[in-house]
C-alpha cells in the first residue's frame, strides 16, 4: 500500500511554496522507488508551519514544517515516510499545542480530509447533519438552529434561526439561500480555508438551509481575490451534483436544491448583504435601505436567507449533534465556537477555533505567542478594517459579541491583526478613513464625503495644523458617520479611528516643530 503524504493545497500554503514541496516529494520518491500518494489537503491553520507536510503512520499523522522543497531529500533520508526524526519533525499533528487547545466543530475536517473526496467527507462524519435534517420538518430544523444559539459569523451576530424562520414564513414561489463568502476583512481567512479545505461542509449547510426554508436555489458569492476557493467550490459542487447531494431530489429525499458560485469584482462593500444582492443581480454594489429585509425581498425581490460561510458551515454539526451540544460551548449570549483568525505580526498566526470566552490576552500572548518581530504588542485590531484597535489595557476582554460591544469594539468576522510597537496609530486611523473612501459605494453622504474629509483632517493633524481643533473635528466627523451612514462601512469606520484616538492619544499629539523638521 502506498504511503499517504499530505501537502496542503490551501492558498496560504501555496503562497509559501507548497506546490514546490509536493513536486519535490513526487520526483524524489520516484528516484528512490518509494510508493507514495500525495493528498492535497486543506490547511490545519498553523500558517507559521506552512508548508506543513504530514505523513500517515501507524501511530497517527506525523507533521513536518515549515518544509522547503530543498528540505525534501534530507527529510526522505531521515525516514519521513515512517515519521522519522528530523529537525523539522513536529511530532504527531494532533499533539501540537496550537491544535490540541482548540475545539474544532466547524473546522473538524479541515486539513484532515481530501477536500474533494466525498467518500473522505462521509468517512469523517460528513452528510450526517443533512441526513438528520431530511428526516425532520422544516420548522423543526429551524427550531434546532435557533436553539443552538448560532449567530451570524459574518460580524453582525444576528441569530441565524430567526432569519431562517422569517424566510420559512415568507410566501414566495422561489426562495434563495445566498452565502456571503465575500470575505474582505483584512486579517480574516476562515471562509477561504473552509471553501478550499472542506467545501462539502458549506454545500451541506446550504442544502440544510434550503430544506429548512423551502429554498431550492443557492448562490455562493465570493471574491475574485480567491481563485483557489472558487475552483475548489466549483469542483465540489460538480461532485455533489454527480452524487445526488445536489439536484432535483437531494439524497432521494424529494427536496430539490442546486447552487452555483458567483464571483465579485473587487468591491469591499459587496460584503454588506444588500450591496451583495445588488451585485448578484448584476448592478453596482450599492447598499439598499432596509426594510424590506432580504428575508422578505432579497435576491430578485424574493425571500432570501443570506448567511456567512461560517454560519452555514456550522449548521451540519448542529444538526448532527444537536442544539444542546453546540449551545453547551461558549459564554453569555455567544454560544458555540468561533474560528478566530490570528494574523499580521503574530508569531503563531493561523486559525484557532474555540468556544467563545477566551480573552484577547490569552489569544495574543499565549496562543499566538506575541509578535514575529519580537517587539512588544502595541495594538491589535479585531474585526477587520471596521473593527476597533485594542490596547494591552483591554486584553482582559473575553471573545463575546456583547463584551466587545461594551468596550466599543466588535468581533466582526473574528480576525485579530497584531501590531508591534513600530505602528503609528495616526497612520492607522488615516488608513481606516482612506479605505472607507476607496470602498464607499457612494450612496450616502456621511460615508462618501466623510471618509475623504477624514483623510484630510488626519493629514492636518500630521502636519501639526491646529491639531486640537482638528482632533475635535475628527471626533465630530466620526459621530456623523457612525449615526448617519446607511450601512456598516461608513457606520463602523469610526471604530478604528476613535479607538486609535482614545487608546493611543500620544500618537495624535503634534510633533514639536524641531523634531518634525528632522
Amino acid at each position, binding site marked *: 500500500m502506498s504511503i499517504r503524504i499530505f501537502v496542503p493545497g490551501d*492558498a*496560504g500554503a*501555496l*503562497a*509559501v511554496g507548497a506546490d514546490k514541496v509536493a513536486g519535490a516529494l513526487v520526483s524524489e520518491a520516484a528516484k528512490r522507488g518509494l510508493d507514495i500518494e500525495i493528498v492535497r489537503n486543506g490547511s490545519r491553520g498553523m*500558517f*507559521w508551519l*506552512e508548508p506543513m507536510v504530514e505523513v500517515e503512520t501507524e501511530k497517527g499523522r506525523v507533521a513536518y514544517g515549515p518544509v522547503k522543497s530543498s528540505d525534501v531529500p534530507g527529510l526522505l533520508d531521515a525516514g519521513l515516510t515512517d515519521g522519522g526524526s528530523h529537525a523539522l519533525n513536529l511530532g504527531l499533528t494532533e499533539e501540537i499545542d496550537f491544535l490540541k487547545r482548540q475545539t474544532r466543530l466547524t473546522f473538524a475536517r479541515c486539513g484532515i480530509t481530501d477536500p474533494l473526496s466525498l467518500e473522505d467527507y462521509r468517512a469523517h462524519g460528513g452528510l450526517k447533519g443533512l441526513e438528520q435534517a431530511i428526516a425532520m420538518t422544516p420548522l423543526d430544523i429551524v427550531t434546532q438552529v435557533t436553539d443552538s444559539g448560532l449567530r451570524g459569523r459574518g460580524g453582525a451576530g444576528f441569530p441565524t434561526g430567526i432569519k431562517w424562520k422569517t424566510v420559512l414564513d415568507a410566501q414566495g414561489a422561489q426562495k434563495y439561500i445566498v452565502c456571503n463568502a465575500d*470575505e*474582505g*476583512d*483584512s*486579517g*480574516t*481567512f476562515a*471562509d*477561504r480555508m473552509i471553501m478550499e479545505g472542506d467545501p462539502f461542509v458549506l454545500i451541506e449547510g446550504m442544502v440544510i438551509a434550503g430544506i429548512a426554508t423551502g429554498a431550492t*436555489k443557492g448562490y455562493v458569492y465570493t471574491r*475574485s*481575490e480567491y*481563485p*483557489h476557493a472558487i475552483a475548489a467550490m466549483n469542483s465540489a459542487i460538480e461532485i455533489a451534483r454527480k452524487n445526488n447531494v445536489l439536484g432535483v431530489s437531494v439524497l432521494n429525499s424529494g427536496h430539490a436544491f442546486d447552487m452555483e458560485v*458567483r*464571483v*465579485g*469584482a*473587487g*468591491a*469591499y462593500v459587496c460584503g454588506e448583504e444588500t450591496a451583495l444582492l445588488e*451585485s*448578484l*443581480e*448584476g*448592478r*453596482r454594489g450599492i447598499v439598499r435601505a432596509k426594510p424590506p429585509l432580504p428575508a422578505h425581498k432579497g*435576491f*430578485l425581490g424574493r425571500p432570501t436567507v443570506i448567511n456567512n460561510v461560517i454560519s452555514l458551515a456550522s449548521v451540519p454539526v448542529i444538526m448532527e449533534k444537536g442544539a444542546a451540544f453546540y449551545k453547551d460551548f461558549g459564554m453569555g449570549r455567544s454560544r458555540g465556537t468561533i474560528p478566530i*483568525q*490570528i*494574523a*499580521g*505580526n*503574530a508569531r503563531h*498566526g*493561523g*486559525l484557532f477555533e474555540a468556544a467563545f470566552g477566551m480573552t484577547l490576552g490569552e489569544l495574543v500572548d499565549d496562543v499566538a505567542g506575541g509578535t*514575529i518581530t519580537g517587539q512588544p504588542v502595541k495594538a491589535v485590531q479585531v474585526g477587520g*478594517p471596521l473593527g476597533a484597535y485594542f490596547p494591552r489595557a483591554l486584553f482582559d476582554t473575553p471573545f463575546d459579541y456583547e463584551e466587545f460591544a461594551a468596550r466599543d469594539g466588535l468581533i466582526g468576522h473574528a*480576525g485579530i*491583526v*497584531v*501590531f*508591534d510597537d513600530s*505602528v503609528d496609530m495616526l497612520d*492607522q486611523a488615516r*488608513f481606516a478613513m482612506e*479605505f472607507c473612501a*476607496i*470602498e464607499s*459605494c457612494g450612496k450616502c453622504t456621511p460615508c462618501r464625503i466623510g471618509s475623504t474629509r477624514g483623510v484630510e483632517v488626519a493629514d492636518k493633524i500630521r502636519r501639526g495644523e491646529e491639531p486640537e481643533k482638528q482632533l475635535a473635528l475628527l471626533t465630530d466627523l466620526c459621530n456623523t458617520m457612525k449615526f448617519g451612514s446607511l450601512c456598516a462601512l461608513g457606520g463602523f469606520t469610526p471604530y478604528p479611528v476613535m479607538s486609535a484616538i482614545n487608546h493611543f492619544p500620544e500618537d495624535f499629539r503634534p510633533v514639536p516643530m524641531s523634531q518634525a523638521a528632522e
Partner: protein
Amino acid sequence: MLNRTADADIASRAGAIVEGHRALEGPLLPILHSIQDEFGYVPTAALPAIADGLNLSRAEVHGVVSFYHDYRQEPAGRHVIKVCRAEACQSMGGEELAEKLLALLGLDWHQTRADGAVTIEPVYCLGLCACAPSAMVDGEVIGRLDHDAIAEIARGVNA
C-alpha cells in the same frame, strides 16, 4: 476602417458571450468577467452588445463596469502584480516593501509601464494574512514577502 472592423469583431464576440450567459439569474457580472477573460479588459465596443442582449441602457452597463475595481477599461500589462495594502500586511512592513517594488518598476499604483510589460495594482486583502505581507503575480499567490522576494518579482517582469 481598421478600427471599425476591430470594433465589429469585439461586438460579435461580446454578443456570443452574452448569449452563452442568458440563462443565468443576474448575468451581468459573469458576462463582464468573461469579456475581461476574452479581451483582457472590457472594451467600450463591447458595451452596446451587452446592453442590447440584457435590455439595459449603455449607461447602466458602463455604470457597473466603472463601479467595480476589477474591470479594466484598457488592457493591462503582460504581467499583473497585485500587492496587498491592508492592515495585516501593513503590520508586517508591507507598505515599505510595496514602495520599494514601485520604485524598482518605476510605476505608481494602477499604472501600466509604457513598454506594456507590467501593471501594478493595490489589493485589499488576499486572505493570506497569517503569512503577510502578500501579493499575487499573474494569479500566483506569494506570502512572507521580503526584500529578496520583491527584487525577484521585479526581475521576473523585466525578463
